[in-house]
């Protein structure tokens, strides 16, 4: 059987810019508040009534030719057999070279122990609300929305001093599910699957529509494709 080559297609005609993907990603992957594995670029151009608006969801592109991987001195950042770019927090020395090498700004570094807001004993409204620490203690989890399933293939919460990034929800894909952002999208704008399978949703979408990628000139060969950009063929 041919090797899998996972990819995502984002249909910009369908995307409504609700950011449900971003929220779902945070909850699924225990992503710190200030990090954005699933992110978006918003562009507003022109003067009313001649204006254009672009909303481009972004995430790790799981590049075929990933500079984050080639530059990593410990192989902590690596390409999996199925085309995903994954990260092993146990090997990471926190040199941040991958962050510098990635042209897309999708890698984040834990300067401090993450989720500081759930170790803080100060209540948001003193005398009225829980403090973050109380909340974490009562839920008996490092953070109230902690998802233990994440820890099956990656550090559940990535420790201080290492980087972290989108993994295409490899833990979900391993059990035959779609990444959380795909499931959460209310407009079915995200299609995920194996590009080597011509019957997969992304393969079919790419056969019908001209695929675009971010910063093509960087030669990274992204595996996140955008179709049907407004105003473009």
């Amino acid at each position, binding site marked *: 059987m041919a090797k899998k080559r996972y990819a995502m297609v984002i249909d910009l005609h369908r995307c409504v810019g609700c950011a449900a993907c971003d929220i779902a990603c945070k909850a699924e992957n225990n992503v710190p508040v200030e990090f954005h594995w699933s992110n978006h*670029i918003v562009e507003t151009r022109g003067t009313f009534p001649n204006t254009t608006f672009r909303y481009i969801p972004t995430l790790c592109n799981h590049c075929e030719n990933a500079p984050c991987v080639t530059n990593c001195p410990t192989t902590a950042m690596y390409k999996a057999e199925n085309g995903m770019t994954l990260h092993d927090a146990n090997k990471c020395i926190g040199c941040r070279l991958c962050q510098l090498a990635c042209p897309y700004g999708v890698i984040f570094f834990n300067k401090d122990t993450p989720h500081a807001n759930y170790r803080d004993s100060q209540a948001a409204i003193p005398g009225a609300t829980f403090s973050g620490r109380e909340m974490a203690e009562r839920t008996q989890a490092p953070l109230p929305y902690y998802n233990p399933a994440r820890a099956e293939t990656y550090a559940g919460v990535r420790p201080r001093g290492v980087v972290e990034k989108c993994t295409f929800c490899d833990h979900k894909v391993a059990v035959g599910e779609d990444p959380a952002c795909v499931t959460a999208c209310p407009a079915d704008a995200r299609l995920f699957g194996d590009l080597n399978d011509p019957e997969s949703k992304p393969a079919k979408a790419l056969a019908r529509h001209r695929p675009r990628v971010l910063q093509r000139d960087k030669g990274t060969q992204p595996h996140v494709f955008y179709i049907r950009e407004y105003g473009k063929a």
Partner: protein
Amino acid sequence: MDTELILTLQRGVIWDERVVGDLFLGGVGVGAFLFAFLLWRFAEERYLPLVKVAATIAPVSVSAGLGLLFWKLGNKLNVHQMMLNISPTSVMWWGAIIQGAFVALSALFAFRLLFPQVSLPRVLSASVAGFLGVPFAVAVGIYHGLLLAVLTSHPLWASGPMIVTSVLLFTVTGVAASVLVYLALRAAVRFETGPSDIFAQGLKPVALVLLASAALLLVTLFAWWVDLRFGSVPARLALQAMLAEHGIVLAVFGIGFGLLVPIVIGISLLPHFGAGRTPSAALVGLACLLLLVGGFTIRYAAVIGGQLPTPLSVMATLS
């Protein structure tokens, strides 16, 4: 209304002053080693004190730089992972190996010169350490240029002149640091053998090498500017951003005080080398100090300025 673009990225520079320090000290060390080796092999006995100083600077400086880099690592306890995992596509991985070997060889070279009376096996002679150390020194110098140049997402770094700048920087700063420390030690402990004016006359070729390297560095910096200014849109934007943030510091301390003033001092001192005349040690020292300040400033502007965020208009390019 102008185009407005929003993307929330992690704030702050990724590689800070500690990496600047590592690259700077690494360059000093490599330059000092090559300088020591060449003087030791091809110059006369009277240069031995200067050779010893330069040879000692080499391992100390590179080790100090590595120490700064180690300090910068987020997860220091994992550093052994670099040895456990082979990562041949990573310039940094090669750098760790090459620099480790260089520190060992240059330390042995310095030890043999400083303590020739200590008897060690022949295979550990200064000659063996020196000859083996030269290719490693060159490799460390190239590594320092390549480390940044391979990061094509940073147009300020990914250019040919960047590598040449790096090589010239190690020549200039390595020699300048050696001469400066030598002069300071000579003033403090008067350890030189032989009449100092004869020695100073012999320094003329060294001064010429320094002058030529500094002048070449100026030309290379200009080539770097031309490469970016007339390059791709991202390159132009990166240059603009760097100059807006660090342009004045680069112009004043990197180019003005750091290169032009020492070149002028050097040229004015040239007639004083030889014919029984001795150049002012204070002026030579000042020129060397300024070259070091210039070298550090150029590194600083390149490393920190090269990390200014890529314009969002570039990041949002779909094609």
